[in-house]
């Protein structure tokens, strides 16, 4: 808040040109959406120590946000299957643009910036055909939609990009329809994949798991060192089977699945809500709000430890560990031990924490 006030004061004094950076928004380390005690929703910029850098009201419950790599701008997505997203100026709180999914498309709630921050990519569903789409929106052209590419799968959820603007889409495998929120369509036929897609939409590599893991919906992605991609899954079968829920892949190499003790696998209840590497990119954490658990692995998929925390979901890289957030308003840093950072009464952190300038 102080950052914002100082900025406005400076602006009024005519001492700055309006070329903003994340420092002007209070240098947040992460962004997170939350429900507040009033019942309303807001997007927060959160400092390294857990304090609020800014708060911008949101029209409805959010899912994830996409942070612009340099400008203090965030795109907040509605929950899937939503058709709206808002681009926010995180210094002034002003809405820079409202993105509306084109006819026949809905957003899946995640996005990423490519082309040095000029193009926003959004994960979308062509809900008549069920084919996944990456929507392309140009920031320099007033957030106009400038095209779309296939995700080469059904039900894309999180998308990220590698150097060279190669997009990675987690194609979850099942469909949704905006008329039936919360309903998963075609689960028995699902065939999820992780797709590497070139900037012009060409499929570069597709990763599918073995037949017996067909019901494991690949939904969230985190990026490690040297092109290592970690993905979190949601098992659509019996959760008591304790199936693997995290995979590691590097282009041209075989996929490695997690090796959790059976009791930790079962405690996750077949669900990963979020995934992240730590700041050093040597460890991976996955969260399950249903199991109230975070599991931490090394880069080879070896299980390191479990963290018990009620309704925990948001994870983001932190120095020597992870930021964690939960539906009870808790914000923590998890290294070897858990350190509370902030607890806001009545604030319920939503599914994802998004790193700024990652």
């Amino acid at each position, binding site marked *: 808040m102080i950052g914002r006030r100082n900025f406005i004061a400076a602006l009024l004094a005519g001492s700055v040109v309006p070329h903003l950076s994340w420092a002007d928004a209070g240098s947040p380390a992460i962004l997170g959406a939350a429900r507040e005690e009033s019942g309303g929703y807001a997007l927060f910029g959160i400092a390294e120590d857990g304090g609020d850098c800014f708060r911008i009201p949101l029209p409805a419950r959010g899912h994830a946000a996409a942070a612009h790599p340099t400008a203090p701008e965030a795109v907040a997505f509605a*929950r899937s299957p939503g058709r709206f997203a808002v681009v926010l100026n995180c210094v002034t709180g002003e809405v820079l643009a409202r993105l509306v999914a084109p006819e026949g498309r809905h957003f*899946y709630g995640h996005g990423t910036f490519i082309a040095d921050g000029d193009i926003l990519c959004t994960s979308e569903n062509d809900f008549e055909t069920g084919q996944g789409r990456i929507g392309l929106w140009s920031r320099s052209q007033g957030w106009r939609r400038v095209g779309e590419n296939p995700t080469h799968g059904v039900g894309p959820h999180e998308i990220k990009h590698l150097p060279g603007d190669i997009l990675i889409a987690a194609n979850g495998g099942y469909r949704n329809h905006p008329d039936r929120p919360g309903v998963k369509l075609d689960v028995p036929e699902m065939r999820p994949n992780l797709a590497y897609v070139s900037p012009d939409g060409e499929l570069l590599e597709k990763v599918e798991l073995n037949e017996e893991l067909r019901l494991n919906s690949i939904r969230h992605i985190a990026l490690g060192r040297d092109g290592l991609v970690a993905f979190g899954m949601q098992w659509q079968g019996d959760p*008591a*089977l304790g199936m693997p829920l995290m995979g590691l892949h590097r282009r041209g190499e075989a996929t490695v699945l997690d090796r959790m003790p059976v*009791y930790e696998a079962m*405690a996750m209840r077949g669900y990963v809500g979020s995934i992240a590497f730590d700041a050093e990119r040597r460890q991976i954490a996955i969260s399950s709000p249903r199991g109230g658990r975070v599991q931490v692995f090394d880069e080879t998929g070896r299980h390191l430890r479990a963290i018990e925390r009620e*309704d925990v979901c948001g994870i983001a890289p932190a120095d020597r560990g992870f930021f964690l957030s939960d539906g*009870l308003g808790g914000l923590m840093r998890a290294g070897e031990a858990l350190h509370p950072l902030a607890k806001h009464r009545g604030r319920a952190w*939503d599914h994802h924490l998004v790193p700024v300038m990652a």
Partner: protein
Amino acid sequence: MRLLALALASLTAFAPMPVMAGVTEAIREHILPAVEEFSAATADLAETAADDCTAEALRPSYRQAFDAWMGLSHLSFGPLETDGRALAIEFWPDPRGMVARTVEGMTADADPVVDDPESFPEVSVAGRGLMALERLLYDDALSAYGAGDYNCRYAVAISADLSRMAGEVLADWREHAELMRTAGAEGNARYMSENEASQVLYTALLTTIEFDADQRLGRPMGTFDRPRPTRAETWRSNRPLRNVTLSLKALRGLALTMSDDPIPATEAAFDTALVTAEALGDPLLAGVETPQGRLKVEILQQQIRAIGDAIEAEIGDGLGLSAGFNSRDGD
């Protein structure tokens, strides 16, 4: 454990904080007595086994130990969740048949680990605990062993291991109770605010209501076309319905300690389900195989779910608690 001890040491430096309604009562009247009883029942099981480990001699103690387990198995946080203890005590549900595979593997190989109490805790959780012991005591192919046979020594090892775990759970619960009582105090990283201690109890309550309906009843119900009575919990020892009843009674006890205000709708919902369960008169839930019998179990299932609704309306709203902002929201 060292971290916990440090956390406790630093907590005692602070004046006790006011804890949300019900937590102190739940610990004193519900949790600690149940944990103590389980510890006593498994100690008795281990003692009986050391004396006479034949199936016939062990069964009464087994039943009592399982009854006692139903008094705390819903406390699915803290001490029972450390290193997967809850599953090591009772490995269920088990859709892969891991208990059968592990127990049969142990007996087929006559794995000498059963004679080494130091190493036995390293056996897979599916080969230990109450479900593995149920196989040895109630499976016709396994239970006809004599004193001194491999299976007899295996039963001794499981019983001693259960008693050991129950003792650890008791010791840990005494420490954990202090963490809950000091919820929100400086340095309490486990319970960061006062209401978090009530929140875990509340979540355990609702989660187990759901577990009773969806797992304990839902698994044997299977689908209409394919009922699965042998997927019921502990059907070999004839206690699928008994577990549901004991679980509901334990949850009723917890619910009553949690609220300062009367909770008539919740009590009525518990009573309705308990009366229905008793009237079923079907300890194995074998009725799921006929349309009429299935309907009766389905009615019980609905009544159990209705308890959850009553709890949310009376206890949740009363204490300002809500379950699962994220856990109930997908994606």
